[in-house]
Each structure stands twice: as structure tokens, then as C-alpha cells.
């Protein structure tokens, strides 16, 4: 037995796609799908592909155009490194239950310090079993390799070599066969090495270090030292976050809260894992549905008691969501929680927990919390706020919206002579009762969303000399005299 200290490296080559697949039905998973990035300007290329896509001839690095010509029904989405890094962070959090020292190599790798775990799990084999058990729970493709330095483990894993040997010689042999293109050296140095006929790490290791240093500089000396296990740079170990923020891509538009319960269950499961590690509980959650164009929908869910189990949380959330309606389909769903309490200290409170927080922000937060709770109890529509928006159509320029204490948008009609009091619904009037003062202001807009209108607005006085805003709906000018007139608002 070698006493060499070992690192393991977990490489997850299509983490983001795996994550998305895990949210799909079996049938959906069989559809060919890929993630693409654009390099520079125009050429989009495939970076992750599922099994069905690969079976159809799609290869990584292939131009997106070629891929979709090969498979006309290929689903393709944008690769997003930030999103993948987030998933990686979650993976780290998941594994953190067993492994204390994990270093993040975003977006697709985790370095695991396993040396000290041998005692707890009964040797490397035990660690391996525990790791496999954890990973079995989530369907993610991975490669794990061991190394006598972090770099060696990383190179082996990233080049797809599943070697978990404890023998240095075996690892060295595997390392020797890794092509230079997988060496993690900068691309120009890879090219320079290939230009002198060095195609694999074996021959590189055989060259005198001084000769290499003379040609490639310091960084190469440091690289070679790491490759030989002579240099072990310090790692930045992962620390679990103290707030919980997770976001799920729903892949299709989901129209109701009911349908969101399935993905929500997953998010709550993650929350439970998060809470479990820290022995914490939570009294308030924020659910956010993200839409295509509209502003996101917030739902705050407060619990009377601190909770941490998924099934408890789910039950209560479900109860509260039954009252809610999702106004527009959602594309993504987030779950946030930040006010945690230790499990022992459990005292329920009706008002927001942190009484002594910064006074300034507190007022706003209290208001938000109050609004949120009112909405949770009474339904979202019961609490509304007046809004101005950029639209020529009066109904849309000035409207009531479910409250969100938020920034004020600038509006089209800010300094137009508009009545202060706009009727929720225009009332038909007899125009002969009115005396026209000024007009028309012709509004013809909104063709793009199927709510177009053509109206001539006038300012007019009624029999009691009240100033009102009236309009006639026009089809065309000639027929205007037969049109119905409406009262839409009052100036006084």
C-alpha cells in the first residue's frame, strides 16, 4: 500500500443538460436535445448533447446548423455557464453531507480531499461507495479520478479516465497516455508542444525540466512540478452559503401553480438538505415565478412554526397555493429563504422575526411582509396598487396591479391632460347630454397584442357642469355620427 496522499476529482461534463433532463418526463428525455454556445459572432456550436442527439450523429463542437440539419426536430437551448456553476454549487452542497473538503472548479468540476475520510468510511473503497450512493440519487453523468496531486486528478477526470487506483504507478501510467490537448496547458503551449511532436503527457514528462523551462517559462516549471506531485498548491475549500437561493428552468411554459408543485417538490428537497446540514429551520419562504415578458410573480409563504422537512413545508405551501392563480405562464421557478433559526429556538411569531434589524429597511420590509401576508391570506388580487405604464391606451396607462412594493416605471402619459379618476369600465352615455369642450384626441394603438382600439376622446361638461372625459369608438370617420359614446373618467 502506498501512503501517497490522494485527491479525487469529480468531473461532470454535461451538468447543466443533466439537470434539465432530470426535470423532464421519460418521453421528453428521449427527444434529442443539445445546449449550444456562440463562439464570437455567428457560429453556434453544440457543447452538451443528450443520448438521443448523439445517437442521431450530433457531436460536441459541431456547428448548430449542421446538428439541426442532421436532426430537424433537435431541441436546442443556450448553454449558460453561470447557471451551470450554480448547479455545481448545489452539487457541492449535496456532497458536503459526506465530504468536508470540497473545492469548486466551475463550471464542471469538484476536487474532493478524500485522504482524511478513509478512517470514517473504512478506506478509499468505503469513500467510493458513499460517493456513489450519493450520486445515484441524482442522475448526473460523471467521471471520478484519483491523483497524487489535485492537478493530476483533474487532468485524469477531465480526459475521461475513471481511475481510482491508489497506486501511484498506475496513475502515472494513465497520465502518460493523456493527450496534450487535455493537459490543461494554455492552448498556444499545447500547439507548441504538438509542433515539436509531443502529443501526450508521457513524452512531456520524459523531457528534462530545464529544457522545458527554457522554452516555456516559469509557469511550465510549476505545471511540471504539480504533474509530478512535487508541488501542491493550496485549495479554496467550499463553504456552504447561509441563504438558500435556487432557480429551476422549467423548459416549457407552465400555466398553473398546481403544475409547479412537482418542480417545487425538488426545490424543497434541496432546501431540506440545506437545512439538515446546518441544523436549521425556516419560517418564511419566497416563491418566484419568472415569466417571458411580464414582471415576475412573488409569493411569500410564512409558516406559523419553523419547519425543515420537505413534506411539512410542501403541505403548507400547497395549501396556500391553492388560493393563488398564476396569471401568466411561468418559465422558471425560484425558491428563496434567508431567515433561518436554530432548531432549538422555536418561538412562533406573527410579525417579522427580526425586531431589532436596521430601522430604515425595516419599515419597507415590514410593509412588504404585511402585504405579503395579506396576499397569502386574502389572495393576491385583494391587495392592489395604482400603477402608471407606458401605453397610449388609457386602460393600460393607468391601472391597478397586484401590489409589489417596488420601483416606479416612467409613463407615456405622465403630463397629458388625463382625468385623475378613470372609471374601471367606461359607461355608455347619451352624447346629447354633454357639451364638448375640447377634442378630439385620437388614440389608435395596441395592434400588437390583439387589444387594439380607435377612439376619439373629448373633454366635455355634463348637465351639472362636471368636466368628464368621454369618447366615441370609431370604425371610420364617416360612420362616426352613429357611434356609441362613453364616459371614461372625471376631471372634477
Amino acid at each position: 500500500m502506498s501512503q501517497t496522499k490522494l485527491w479525487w476529482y469529480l468531473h461532470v461534463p454535461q451538468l447543466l443538460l443533466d439537470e434539465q433532463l432530470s426535470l423532464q418526463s421519460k418521453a421528453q428525455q428521449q427527444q434529442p436535445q443539445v445546449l449550444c454556445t456562440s463562439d464570437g459572432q455567428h457560429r453556434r456550436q453544440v457543447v452538451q448533447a443528450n443520448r438521443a442527439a448523439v445517437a442521431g450523429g450530433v457531436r460536441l463542437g459541431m456547428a448548430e446548423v449542421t446538428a439541426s440539419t442532421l436532426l430537424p426536430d433537435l431541441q436546442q437551448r443556450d448553454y449558460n455557464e453561470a447557471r451551470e456553476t450554480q448547479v455545481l454549487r448545489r452539487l457541492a452542497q449535496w456532497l458536503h453531507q459526506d465530504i468536508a473538503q470540497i473545492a469548486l472548479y466551475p463550471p464542471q468540476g469538484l476536487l474532493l480531499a478524500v485522504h482524511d475520510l478513509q478512517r470514517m468510511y473504512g478506506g478509499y473503497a468505503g469513500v467510493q461507495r458513499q460517493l456513489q450512493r450519493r450520486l445515484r440519487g441524482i442522475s448526473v453523468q460523471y467521471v471520478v479520478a484519483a491523483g497524487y496531486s489535485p492537478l493530476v486528478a483533474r487532468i485524469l477526470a477531465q480526459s475521461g479516465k475513471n481511475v481510482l487506483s491508489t497506486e501511484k504507478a498506475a496513475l502515472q501510467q494513465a497520465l502518460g497516455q493523456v493527450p496534450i490537448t487535455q493537459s490543461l496547458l494554455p492552448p498556444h503551449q499545447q500547439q507548441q508542444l504538438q509542433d515539436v511532436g509531443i502529443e501526450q503527457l508521457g513524452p512531456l514528462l520524459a523531457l528534462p525540466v530545464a529544457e522545458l523551462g527554457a522554452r516555456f517559462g516559469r509557469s511550465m516549471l510549476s505545471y511540471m512540478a504539480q504533474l509530478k506531485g512535487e508541488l501542491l498548491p493550496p485549495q479554496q475549500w467550499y463553504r456552504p452559503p447561509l441563504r438558500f437561493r435556487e432557480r429551476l428552468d422549467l423548459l416549457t411554459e407552465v400555466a398553473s401553480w398546481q403544475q409547479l408543485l412537482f418542480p417545487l417538490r425538488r426545490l424543497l428537497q434541496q432546501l431540506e438538505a440545506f437545512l439538515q446540514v446546518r441544523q436549521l429551520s425556516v419560517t418564511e419562504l419566497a416563491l418566484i415565478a419568472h415569466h417571458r415578458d411580464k414582471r415576475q410573480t412573488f409569493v411569500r409563504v410564512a409558516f406559523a412554526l419553523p419547519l425543515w422537512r420537505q413534506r411539512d413545508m410542501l403541505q403548507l405551501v400547497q395549501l396556500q397555493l391553492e388560493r393563488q392563480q398564476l396569471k401568466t405562464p411561468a418559465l422558471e421557478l425560484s425558491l428563496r429563504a434567508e431567515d433561518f433559526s436554530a432548531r432549538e429556538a422555536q418561538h412562533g411569531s406573527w410579525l417579522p422575526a427580526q425586531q431589532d434589524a436596521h430601522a430604515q429597511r425595516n419599515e419597507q420590509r415590514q410593509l412588504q411582509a404585511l402585504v405579503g401576508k395579506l396576499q397569502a391570506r386574502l389572495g393576491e388580487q385583494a391587495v392592489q396598487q395604482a400603477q402608471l405604464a407606458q401605453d397610449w391606451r388609457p386602460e393600460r396607462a393607468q391601472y391597478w396591479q397586484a401590489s409589489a412594493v417596488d420601483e416606479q416605471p416612467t409613463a407615456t402619459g405622465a403630463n397629458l391632460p388625463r382625468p385623475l379618476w378613470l372609471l374601471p369600465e367606461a359607461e355608455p352615455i347619451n352624447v346629447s347630454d354633454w357639451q364638448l369642450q375640447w377634442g378630439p384626441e385620437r388614440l389608435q394603438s395596441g395592434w400588437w397584442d390583439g387589444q387594439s382600439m380607435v377612439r376619439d376622446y373629448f373633454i366635455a361638461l355634463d348637465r351639472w357642469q362636471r368636466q368628464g372625459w368621454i369618447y366615441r369608438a370609431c370604425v371610420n370617420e364617416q360612420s362616426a355620427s352613429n357611434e356609441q359614446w362613453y364616459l371614461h373618467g372625471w376631471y372634477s
Partner: protein
Amino acid sequence: MAGTVNRSVSWRPSALNCVTNYSFLYGAAHPHEYIERAVQLDYRAIAITDECSVAGVVRAFVAMKAVTADLTLLIGSFFVVPEVGTLIVLARNRRGYGQLCRLISLGRSRCAKGSYQVCIDDFLQGLDDCLLLWRPQEKRFSEQVTRLRQAFPERLWLAYARHYHANDRIEVRTYQHYQRISQLPVVAVDEVLYPQAERQKLHDVMTAIRHRQTITEVKAQLRPNAEHYLRSAAQLQRCYPSQWLHAADGIVAQCDFKLSELSYEYPAELVPEGLSATEHLRQLAYAGAKQRFPEGLRSDVQAKLEKELSLIAELKYEYFFLTIHDIVQFAQQCGILYQGRGSAANSVVCYCLQITAVNPDQIDVLFERFISKERDEPPDIDVDFEHQRREEVIQYIYKKYGRDRAALAATVIRYRLRSAFRDVGKALGFNEQELGHYLRQIDRRDQDTPWHAQLALLQKGLPETERGRWLLQLTEELRGFPRHLSQHVGGFVIAAGPLADLVPIEHASMADRTVIQWDKDDLETLKLIKVDVLALGMLSALRRMLQLVAEHYQRPLDLATIPTEDPKVYQMLQRADSVGVFQIESRAQMNMLPRLRPATFYDLVVQIAIVRPGPIQGDMVHPYLRRRAGEEAVTYPSEEVRQVTERTLGVPIFQEQVIKLAMVAAGFSGGEADQLRRAMANWRSTGELQQFEQRLIAGMQERGYRLDFAQRIYQQICGFGEYGFPESHSASFANLAYASAWFKYHYPAAFYCGLLNSLPMGFYSADQLIQDARRHDIAILPVDIQTSAWQHQLVPMQNGMALRLGLCLVRGLVEKQVQVLLAQRPANGFASLSALRQAGASPALLQRLAAADALKKITGHRYQSQWQTLAEQAEQLPLFATVENSIATTPQASITLAPPSEVKDLAADYRVLGASIRRHPLALLREKKLLRGVRTAAELVSCRHQQIVQVAGLVTCRQRPGTAGGVTFITLEDETGMVNVVVWQATARAQRQEYLTAKLLKVVGTVEIHGEVIHVIAGRLEDGAPLLAQLEMEGKRSRDFH
């Protein structure tokens, strides 16, 4: 709200501020739409006023030609002046128009392409023949009004517009107030942005596009209603006080300017004192004739010359010919090859002035094609120059005439389907991927189904949504709208005086280039002359060939003295041995060569013109070939048709023949024929051609021609629309094709050397040319720092000339640095790497040279060279000094590396040089016995027709021509030549992957042999990647080192 016209109203309105789509992404109307609508509404006048531009006025002027009603077109422009408001300037007369152009040029000259900047001071002087309509911007009104009124006494109005907005009430009071304090007249001037209210939607979308946002994001920028259309008299009378409306009449009455008044004065300095332009041109022509016809002028040629000269004099085109003569003289003096083409090749005068090179003896010259009295439009003379030296000619023009007198014509870049679809789609909130996905569903070659019908069929959901329907409709409306002005490839306008009096000049995106605001069609409409200074790569190559032959074979030649009608040259072409030969080197041309078997110059003229969409779509190719082969009798449906088509055996091939046929066989008048020709030129963007179909077919049938003949003629016309080829044009090209073929046959080394030094150009890459040279037994010597120059060179060897590749082939080298190095090269080469370093070679340069295997003679094979040059980098590495100290020996060649395998060398050659003179990869595969049973390209000749064979090669070309109905042509290259593979659509679909992605392809198929044309019809395709991988493995085994 289509207003019905109430004829009883005697007052006729005028629109003084119409904005067209030449105010890019602002006005939502083609200029002609305003004219047409104004006629319907019985307008008195229409003023086209784009933003700091007159780019759209010529189109409006053209539309006016068809107007019989009493409508006046005013020319003007509007300017947004910060802190002043909007100023609309109208030209009162020709002088005022010039002033307006200068103002626009001034505003444009201050900014980069596409924008402008003006201030109130620009309007205070030099606009005394312009009228000014002002939409003031509150605040400093009283101060500004004093200044403007002084500059525009009695010529200044306040322009009030009412579009039923909320602030109308405030506005009207403001204008009344202004009027009271300034005593200026108020005139009602609508801001017209589109002809009819329905266009509001397009205008909204264009606003979104301009702001690069979606329509829901720019709602604040949209107009609140659709009132910016041309309103009827009744509508206007309801909207404005009558006094304000009638004020427009006084404005219109003051304006009297038509674009037809613009006349062009040629630069006068070209004629020596004491001579008239006519006399000077005559002298030059006869002097030239002496050179061109040393044996004396034949009487019929002289008669033609005289006829041309008198016609030129009558139409006053002398200066135009003298201008071009002057430019080509300059090129001659500098040794820059050039050749006139286009219809100018029909002129004996052009031949005598050495502008063109087509001997009138060789083709039937049709001078009427070039200039005709009845057509009354300026002649079109395009001159091609060597592409690498055209800039010298352009600089000469700028120097000689000055930048204020010479500028490039504009090219109007218009919305096409894809760009319109994307921009409209983004404005409606679709994302890029969705749009890309939809666009991919459209087969633009499918001419039977319009694009939106195709989409509706394949994407059923799309037209079912509101957004989808708008996308389809508005894309169609936006198509053809101008998007911006770009510069014409080489059309110069040169004037006697400042050009800015004639048309505004603005910056082009290229530094130091200026463009006018009109494009070539506008110039043609106004009968202004442009000189096309174009670039042609083959001329560069030919000049090099001429020089090489003079230098290395002591045979001084020029284009005119190359021996003509050499049967050996034609025999070579009949074998389709035409790689690198101008115009007839494409795959389609190569297929045609053995069938058409050109044997004379005129055959070449036909050959060049026949492989074009026109004759192919008109189904004229096969009849011509059959008649030429004697398989079909040459007959003519009538005597008239015989006269037009006798040269081409009764089958119309050239564009002018088809037009002539429209006249003699369908009864088109000269004017109609001319409209037809113009429609052909731009039918892709406007679809104008359809209107002629009925007329043509009916006309021909009335005169007793068969329906199918008439339909084929129409199809041919449509094909010409894509790329028309007149006979004279083809003849000019045939000249160059023959010249290059002559070199290929007689001096192949010089031919390839000239071509390679003129790249990039033409159809083939350096590698393909080099492979072809090797197949013609030219010895090729590798790139070598000890012997190569920057360019490729000829070097005498025992058995003829060899071609030494130049360092220009090495990717990433900078010519200047290499030249410095070469200037210091000792006679017997550099002694060592350090000698190279001392001569100034940077480590990076050395590495490129090593990678190109150009240091072989100094440092040995590629790997070793690179290893050593890497060490040269050492001193440049920061922080390395300390490490170096710790090393006992200096790192110099202490390690010996094994040489690369042949495959590795080959791959490196392609990576660094893009070409290789080592053995072909297919030869290597064959040697390794990896291609059992696979025939070479050369062996196919001895196969039976319909025999099943296997072939393999590198894919050099995949083509799916629009004329070939779903067939793809793949060209495979092996060590013996090219194999032409035909893949039917079904095969391609079944084996998509191989078909689309393979770099090395193995094909099992049937040989088709027709005469000397050999094809392999693909049955099964096989990706050769595994073979290459195997080759790599072989390479690896031989290369391991310890």
C-alpha cells in the same frame, strides 16, 4: 380611413413634409407611394422631405413620369436642429436645390456615416433660393426668429401640424402666440410618415427596430395614433383653419424646380486648348485606330467608327469618352492591366481608344446596344483593373479631379427576406433562436410557394397567433425597404464643378471615401454619367504571367499580341482542363466544356454565357448543344427570329437576343423593351417582371409563335434577371479566358505562378492550384528561408521551369518583417538561427518559419526546428533569468527529436501553409492498403458506362445549384485528379451525416460516361474519418521516441 375624394371641393391640398423610407427606419413609405396616393386624392403638390437627405427624390421623380394629373413635386429635406426645432428646407429653383445639397453635405461631413449635425448658423447664409418651414421648439423663440427672418425674408413660415394629439390645444395656442409676436405666417404642414393609415403598424415596428427594442418596450416612443398619413382635402379642412391651409398654395407657387433640369458638365480640362472636344476625340480615335489596325482600317470598320463618332457628337458624350480614356492612359503608363467590359465592348471607338480589347472583327458589334439615340440614356462603360492595384487608379482620380468633384455612387442596401424577418421578429418579441428556426424552414429556391405559405405550412401554430400573423405580414411589407446607403463597388461620378451642387455627398464607412446620396439607377434616370472603376483579380494574374514570360522565356507580349485562335489551346479546353482559367473553371463550366467543345473565340463567348441561370431556366442549353453537334436541324420560326439568333444557331443565348426577340417576335416597342431590360435588372427585389409575362406570351402567340417557345423565352428572361449576360460582356470575358488558357497551355509554370501570386481570387484555393500544377508535371519547390522570396517565383531547372513557393504562403507572417529579413540574406543563405536572429527575425517569426518547415536547411526537420526556435524565446520570457542561472548548460539542441511522420508533416503543412507538396493523403492511404478496390480519378476513364465503382477523395466542393433541382454536386480530390459525384436528394437525405460532414468521403456508385464527361452517381456514402484515424495511428507508431 381611405378618404373618398370630393371633387366639388375646388381647393387642392399640398403635403409639404412627406418623409419616405429613405429616412431610414423612420418614414414608412416608398417615394412612389406618395405620388400615387397624392394623385388619387387630387393633391396639388407633394414635397419629398427626408431627414438631411435627398436620397429618395429620384424615385419620386420616376413615379412622376407616369402621372398625367397636375401634380407638382417639390424637393426638400428636413433637419432636426437642437434647441431650434425642426427646419424643413424646400428648393425654390435649381440654384436653391444646389444650396440644399450643400447644406446636407455640410451636415453629413461633420459626422460618421449615417448621421449628421447642423446648427442654426448653417441656415443663416447661402440658402437664399430656399424656403424655410419651421416647427419651433419653445424657449428661445424670439431670439431665433429674428435671425431666421433676416436670413429668409418673406421665405419663412411657421409649420403647424395637428395629428389629433392630446396637446393640440396647447400647440395651437402656442403657434397663435408666435404668430402674434413675430408676424410670421403660419402654414398647416402635416408630418406625413406613410401614405395610408394601415402603415402605422409598420411604422411602429420600424420605431422599435430603430431603438433596438421590442415594441412593448418602446411604447413611449410610438405615435399615439395613425394620423400621419396623406389626408384628404376634406379631412384637412376639418382639421385646420382655412387660412393656414391656403398658405401652402403660396409656397407651392414659389417653387419651380424639376430634377430633369440637372445637367451634368464634364470635366473640361481633358481637351487641349484650341480644339473642340469633338475634334480631340476624333484625333485620338484615329490615332488609336492606327495602332489597333496596323494594316489599315477596313472600310466597313471605318464607316462604323464614323457613325459612332457622329452619334457621340450629337449626344454630346465626348467628355465621357475622354474621361475614361484619360483614366486608362494613366493605367497604361503605370503598367496596370485593365479591360473595358459591358456594352462598351460594342464600340469601335472604345476599341480604338484602348478602353476595350474586343476586336470588332471578332464579334458582331452592335453599337446601338451601347448608345442609342432613341433610348437617350448615358452609355455604360465599366473598366476592370488589376485588383491589387485598383487603389492607384482611384487615388489618381481623386488627385486629378479633387475630392469635391469626384465621389462614388451609393448602393442602397435594402431589407431582404431574412433581415426583414429577423428585425420584425425581434421587434415583436420573438427570440433569435425561434426566428432562426423559422428561417431555416424556408427554402428560398422553392419558387412555386411563397415564403410565408411555406412557413404557414410547416409551422402551423405561427399564423394562429396574433404575433405570428403580424410577423408574416409586416415582414412582407418591410421587404425592399432601404436600410442604409453603402458605397458602390467602383462607380465614380466626376463633375466639372463641385459635385455638392448636384447631389449631397456623405462619408462612406471606408476611410477617405465619399459617396453621393444616389445609386446607379438614380444616376441613370437623371442621365448622369458614372465611370465604373472595378477590380478584377484575373488581370493581376495575367500581368504577372506576361511579366514572367517576358523575363524567363524572353518573349515580350501584351494582351493584344497573344496569338489568337490557337487550336492546341482549344483542345486543352475541350478536355475540360481548365482549372484556373478565367470564367470557365467552375464545375458547371467544366462539365459543359467537353460537350460544347469550343474551337473558336466565338464559341468561348457562347460557353461563358450559356452556363448561366438565363439559358438554363429557359431550357436553351440542350437545343443549342444538339444543334451544334448536328443532331438537330437549325431552323427558325421566322425570318425575324433568324436575324436575331443566327449567330447562336437559332437558340437565344444572350440577354440582348432575348430583348430583341421581345421586340421582333412579341411586338414590344423600343421603350417597352427598355422597361423590360430594367425590370430584369431588379426583379429580384421588386418582382416587376411578372407584368411582362402576359404581354410577351400573348404578343408572341399573336404573331404565330408556339406557346412553349414563348414560355421558354419568358423563363429565360426570369433567369437573366438573376444574372444577365449580354454578348459584349461575355466577349470581354472570353478575351481574358482565352488569354489565361493560352498561358496555361504554353507556359504552365508562369500560369500557376501568376495565379498563386494574385490570390485570393477565382474559384480555387492555393492548394487546389498547386495540386493541378503537379498533375501538369510542374516541379514545385517548398517554402524555404534560404531560397524563397515573399512571392512565388519561377526558377530554371535542368528540365524546364520549376515553381518555388513563396513565404507569402505561410499563415501569420507580416510581409514587411519578412522583406527586411530577405534583404539581408547572404548569397548562400543564413548560416544559423542566430544569423537569422541578428538579421532581425523575432522569435515569433522564427516559430512561424519553423512551423512552415522553412528552416529545414538550417535546423533540420520540422520538430527539431521548432524545438530550437522555442529556445530563442527564452530571453523574452519574464522572470526566467533566475531559472536560467540554475541550469548548467545553455539549452541548445541538447535533445534530438524524432522526425515527424509523413502524415504529421502533411497535416502541419495544411495548418500552416494551407497547401502541401508532399504526397496526397489518398496516396498514403493507398500505400497503406486502406483503399482496396477503390479506383482513382484517372482510372474512371477506362470504366464502362453504368459500371459500379468505388471512389474516394477529399471533399473539395459541395454545391447545390438552384438550377439543378435538389441535386448536390460533390467534388472529390485524389492524387490523380477530381471525381465528380452526383448525389440525388433521396441519397442525401438517407445519409445526411456523411453527406453533410465528411471531409474524406468514400462513395459507391455508378459511373456515367457521356463523351468526355464522367460522373459518379452516388449510391452509398461512407465517411472516411476512420481511415484517416488509422493513418494517424500508423503515423504514431513510427514516431515514438525515447
